[in-house]
C-alpha cells in the first residue's frame, strides 16, 4: 500500500531532524532511505510507523490520513536494529504475539506462525528463547513477527546494522528474495550505500533533514542531483574542480588524445583493481582501472599521461 508523506517537519529541542519533507512510496516497492547518521532517515521511518509524532505535516497510508493514528492501530510492521526480541517468549510466541493480541483463533495462529517460521527458515528453533539464537536468526525472527500481522507496510530501521559483515551480506540477499516473494510495501533505513544500491527498487537520499534525491539505484548513481549525493553513493575524485567517479577517469598514454596532462605519482593494486594516483595541474585525482588496463597501458610511476572524464 502506498505511503504519502507531505511537508513533514520534526525538531528535537533545537536540532532539526526533518525539514519540510515530501515523499511518496508506491505500492509494493522496496525503498531504501539512505543517508549519513543523524541525517533524519530513522526519524522519518519512525514517523511513518507512528513511534514519533511530526511537529508539522501529514502521513497518509493507503490514502488515509494516519498522522494522529497511534502505532498500535496503524497496522505497520516494524523491525528494529537491535531486534527488540521479547526475551521471555519463545521464538514461536514472539511471532504469534501480534496475532494473539488480535485474538485470532488458536488454529489459525498456529498455521500462520508455522508458515512464517518456514519462510524465515526458523522452523526448528520454534521453542527456543531469543537469547539462544544468533543475531541473524533473531533478526529473521523479528521479520517474521512483523509480517505475521499482515502489515500494510513493513518498516526496517537499520535491520542489519548490528550484524557481522558476512551475515549482513547474506541477509541482504535474502531480504531481496523475500520481498520478491512477499510483495509488501517495504521501507528500510540504511547508511550503507552498497546495501541500498543492491537491495532497493528505489533510493531516497536524506541528509541534514532534507531529501536530496529520489530515484532508482541506477538513476541516483549515474545522475546524482548534487555533489553530496554523488560523493555519498560511491568513491569520487576531483578533476578540473569537478567531481568524477574514479572508474570514469580514463588514462591515455597516446599524446594525440584530448585531456588534461598529468603525471602518475603512485600505483596501488587492490584485488582486481589498480588505483592510479596522479598529479594534474596541482590537483591529485585518482583513477580506478583494471589490472589488464594497467598492464596494457604499461603504467609506471613518474610517467606522463593524459586523463579525461568519460562521463
Amino acid at each position, binding site marked *: 500500500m502506498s505511503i504519502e508523506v507531505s511537508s513533514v517537519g520534526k525538531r528535537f529541542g533545537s536540532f532539526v531532524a526533518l525539514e519540510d519533507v515530501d515523499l511518496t512510496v508506491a505500492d509494493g516497492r522496496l525503498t531504501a532511505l539512505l543517508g549519513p547518521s543523524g541525517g533524519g532517515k530513522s526519524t522519518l521511518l519512525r514517523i511513518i*510507523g*507512528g*513511534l514519533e509524532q511530526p511537529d508539522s505535516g501529514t502521513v497518509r497510508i493507503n490514502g488515509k490520513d494516519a498522522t494522529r493514528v*497511534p*502505532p*498500535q*492501530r*496503524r*497496522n*505497520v*510492521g*516494524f523491525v*528494529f536494529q*537491535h531486534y*527488540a*526480541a*521479547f*526475551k*521471555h517468549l519463545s521464538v514461536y510466541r514472539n511471532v504469534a*504475539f*501480534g496475532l494473539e*493480541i*488480535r485474538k485470532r483463533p488458536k488454529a489459525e495462529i498456529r498455521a*500462520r506462525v508455522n*508458515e512464517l517460521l*518456514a*519462510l524465515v*527458515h*526458523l522452523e526448528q528453533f520454534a*521453542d*527456543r*528463547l531469543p*537469547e*539462544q*539464537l*544468533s*543475531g*541473524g*536468526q533473531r533478526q529473521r525472527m*523479528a521479520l517474521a*513477527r*512483523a*509480517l505475521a*500481522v*499482515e502489515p500494510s507496510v513493513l518498516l526496517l530501521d537499520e535491520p542489519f546494522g548490528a550484524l*557481522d559483515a*558476512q*551475515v549482513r551480506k*547474506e*541477509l541482504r*540477499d*535474502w531480504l531481496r*528474495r523475500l520481498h520478491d*516473494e*512477499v*510483495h*509488501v510495501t517495504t521501507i528500510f533505513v540504511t547508511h550503507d550505500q552498497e546495501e541500498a544500491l543492491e537491495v532497493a527498487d528505489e533510493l531516497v537520499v536524506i541528509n541534514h533533514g532534507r531529501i536530496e534525491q529520489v530515484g532508482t539505484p541506477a538513476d541516483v548513481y549515474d545522475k546524482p542531483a548534487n555533489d553530496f549525493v554523488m560523493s555519498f553513493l560511491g568513491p569520487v575524485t576531483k578533476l578540473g574542480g569537478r567531481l568524477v567517479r574514479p572508474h570514469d577517469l580514463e588514462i591515455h598514454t597516446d599524446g594525440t588524445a584530448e585531456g588534461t596532462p598529468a603525471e602518475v605519482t603512485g600505483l596501488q593494486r587492490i584485488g582486481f583493481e589498480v588505483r592510479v594516483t596522479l598529479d594534474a595541474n596541482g590537483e591529485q585525482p585518482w583513477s580506478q582501472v583494471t589490472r589488464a588496463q594497467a598492464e596494457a597501458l604499461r603504467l609506471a610511476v613518474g610517467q606522463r599521461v593524459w586523463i579525461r572524464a568519460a562521463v
Partner: protein
Amino acid sequence: MDSRRSTQLIRRTIALLYVGVLVLVPLVVVTWKTVSPGPSAFWKAISSDQAVTAFRLTAEIALASVALNAVFGVGLGLLITRYRFPGRRLLSALADLPLSVSPIVVGLALVLVYGPVDGWFGSTLDSAGIKIIFSLPGMILATTFVSFPLVLREVVPVLAEEGIEQEQAARVLGASAWQRFLRITLPIIRPALLYGIVLSLARSIGEYGAVLVVSGNVSGADQTQTVPLLVGERVQQLEPGAFQLAFLLIVVTVLVIVLVFLRRRENESKHSEPPAVVLDDLALSAADPAPTALALDRAASNDAASNDVALDSVAPNKGGLR
C-alpha cells in the same frame, strides 16, 4: 602453593568468623532462649490475646505496605525510566530519602503532619472523624514510607537496562498500554519485582522505630502494638515471651526469603537448560574458530540459499502477506 592455600584458609576463617559473630551467634541465642523454657511457654507467649492482635496488626500493616510499595514502586519506576520531565532527577533522589532518614524521624514527621492535636492536617482530619496517628492508617503510612524505595530500587535498573524497544515493538504489533504492561513489561521486571516485594515485606514485618512513634504503642482495648513493639515491651518490662515472638518473626522472614531464593534458582535453571541444545548443535563445528553465533547463522543461511523449495512451498500463501 602451600602459603597460598594457607592465606586462603585464613581469609575464609575471617569471613566465617565475621558472619558468625555478627549474624549466627545472636540467632542461635534467640533460638536457644525460645526453645529452653519448653513448648508450653512458647505456646503461652504466642497465643495470648495481646500477641494474637499484634500478629494480626503486623500482617495487615505488612500486606498493605507491600501492596502500596509494589504498585507505586513499579509506577514510579516506569515514570523515572520512561519519561523525561523537569524534576525527574529530584524525584529519583527523593525516592531514596526514606532509606537514609532515621525511622524515628519519619515517625515524628508524620505525627507533626497528621497528629490530632497540633498536626498540620490533624485537626481537619480529626473533625472529619478520620484518625491517622495512633491508629492503623498512620502505622501503614509509616511502614510504607520506610520501605518505599525497596521495590523501586530493584525495578529501576531492570527497566533502564531493558530499554523501551520491546514495548515499542509490542505497540506496533497492536498491543494497548495495558496489554504492553501485562505481556511485556511485567514479565521483564518480574524477578526484580518479586525480590523487591520480599525485601519490602521483611522490612515491614520488622519495622520498629517509625511505628513506635506513630502508633503510641497502645496495648489493651485499642491495641496498636505490632509484634516488634510487643517484643520491645516484653524485653523492657522483663516479662517472659519476648524471645518466642522474636523467633517467630525471624522464622517468617527467613522462610519468605528462602522461598523466593528457591523460586529464583528454579527460574534460572529453567532458562539455562536449553542453551545446552545450542551447544550440541555446534558440537560438530567446535573446531571452527569462527564465533559460535556466526557459525550458527551461516549454517542457517546456507540452508536458506540452497533451499528454494522452501520458499516456493509458501508461495501460494503469499497473497495473505500483502
